[in-house]
């Protein structure tokens, strides 16, 4: 039994003027104990998919299960198994950190949960804020409380929806060491993030969404291996020749180009030289997940050879 199962999930939002198809036949499983990444540009449907998983939205068609429990028919068991860290920085201004965590425990039927609450507070660096009112906390501290609230009932499946958006380095490290520990202890983790280096470092498997469809689903290592794996990085002041310009990533003076192998590197450099481009500070390295991501997202057609892995 997978920890999370999406089967042919579609979601159409019916507006007054037009309907928007946010998800279109999404199917994949997340195995127990996996650290799974869900990536995609803004508007790809990541948050919609997670909302359906959490019961915050309802799928137009298809089924979603958490630890074998259907999220609609058997919602109570499904939600007991799920801990969601929402993307929005929300809080209840009436309560202190400890009160919020005790109340959240109570919703899940837990009383005398203070030992675990204390452990959460310590591990998330919140111990000295336990009695502070939520309003008095900084944004980063509120984010930590959101993580703690999602974990009060020790859910076997933890979902983090862009948990590090706009947070400082210290929290990222605190958060990831704690989440990695929970993952080692057997918790399944589903992560969406804009920081692709985080996904590359943490996730053993990755699904990529584009316009509501799964366009890639594989082990992170395979995704990195299966694509143009070499990266050229250099600086220049000249315009790029038309032959290479469309596939280049340009940031100011910095240009990045990907190549499959050494031969392609040679031919790229030859094209640049032929086009009169003065290449400065050339570096050649391995492509990272960001390059894979861009390559997949820029592909106009669906890539059946990758989708077939699903």
């Amino acid at each position, binding site marked *: 039994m997978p920890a999370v199962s999406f089967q042919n999930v579609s979601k159409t939002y019916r507006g007054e003027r037009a309907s928007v198809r946010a998800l279109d036949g999404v199917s994949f499983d997340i195995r127990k104990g996996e650290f799974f990444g869900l990536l995609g540009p803004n508007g790809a449907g990541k948050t919609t998919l997670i909302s359906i998983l959490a019961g915050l939205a309802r799928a137009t068609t298809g089924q979603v299960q958490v630890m074998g429990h259907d999220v609609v028919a058997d919602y109570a068991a499904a*939600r007991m198994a799920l801990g969601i860290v*929402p993307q929005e920085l929300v809080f209840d201004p009436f309560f202190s950190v400890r009160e919020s965590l005790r109340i959240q425990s109570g919703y899940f039927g837990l009383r005398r949960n203070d030992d675990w609450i204390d452990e959460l507070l310590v591990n998330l660096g919140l111990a000295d804020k336990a009695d502070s009112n939520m309003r008095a906390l900084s944004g980063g501290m509120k984010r930590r409380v959101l993580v703690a609230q999602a974990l009060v009932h020790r859910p076997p499946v933890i979902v983090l929806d862009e948990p590090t958006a706009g947070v400082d380095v210290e929290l990222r490290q605190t958060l990831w060491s704690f989440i990695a520990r929970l993952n080692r202890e057997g918790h399944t983790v589903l992560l969406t993030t804009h920081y692709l280096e985080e996904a590359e470092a943490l996730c053993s498997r990755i699904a990529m969404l584009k316009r509501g469809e799964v366009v890639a689903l594989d082990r992170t290592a395979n995704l990195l291996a299966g694509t143009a794996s070499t990266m050229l990085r250099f600086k220049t002041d000249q315009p790029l020749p038309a032959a290479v310009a469309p596939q280049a990533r340009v940031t100011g003076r910095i240009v990045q180009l990907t190549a499959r192998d050494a031969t392609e590197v040679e031919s790229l450099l030859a094209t640049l030289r032929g086009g009169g481009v003065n290449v400065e500070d050339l570096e050649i390295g391995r492509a990272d997940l960001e390059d894979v991501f861009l390559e997949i997202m820029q592909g106009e057609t669906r890539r059946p050879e990758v989708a077939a892995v699903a």
Partner: protein
Amino acid sequence: MKHPFRGARTLFYKEVLRFWKIVFQTVAAPVLTAVMYLLIFGHVLSDRVQVFDGVGYTSFLIPGLVMMSVLQNAFANSSSSLVQSKVTGNLVFLLVTPLSHWAWFAAYVGASVVRGLAVGGGVFLVTVWFSPPGLANPLWIVLFAILGAALLGALGLIAGLWADKFDQMAAFQNFIIMPMTFLSGVFYSVHSLPAFWNGVSHLNPFFYMIDGFRRGFFGVSDVSPWLSLAVVGASFVAVSAIALHLLKTGYKLRH
């Protein structure tokens, strides 16, 4: 879930704690408002308005004001709490829990009853010294206070689910709840009205709540307390059924 009632109890406790943390605004202020009504209307109208035989106007007014406070504050509690949670987004903490629609209903309505009774009790304790109204049948008093508060708490739940913004909530309160309470016989006995308006008043469920409640103090009322009980009870069942249906289907909660 191993302890289904514990979740509902926690939500009830949280809802009570919420208004208790701002008790000055949620309890003390409405008590003061009711006392102002008593002082002003009691002074201005005491010689002009005929109510029940042998019952002074100020005595008559006290139970009306108590019940009006119970009803308005019960409504305000569930509705404002829900709208606030929706607007600030923290309702998500509740939406991701295994709590059933019954648990939501019981907790929100229960906390509304507590707030309504707290304010009503406060109004009674402060105003009773002006002109004690008597206690002919305390059971009616308790029954109508609780049932009325529960009905308005459930109505507040519906309004809170429906409203997306604070001004929609205020419209519901000012254009529906306020007129219906004011025109229900809080300040007068409906039998003193012209026949047409007397008839119209009998279509207002709030009239039966206040009339039945008053019966407990004076032993007399405009209509039989059993009729009032039937109307208020049926209204509560109908409003609760709608509220439960909206919660179950996730109306404006789960898209």
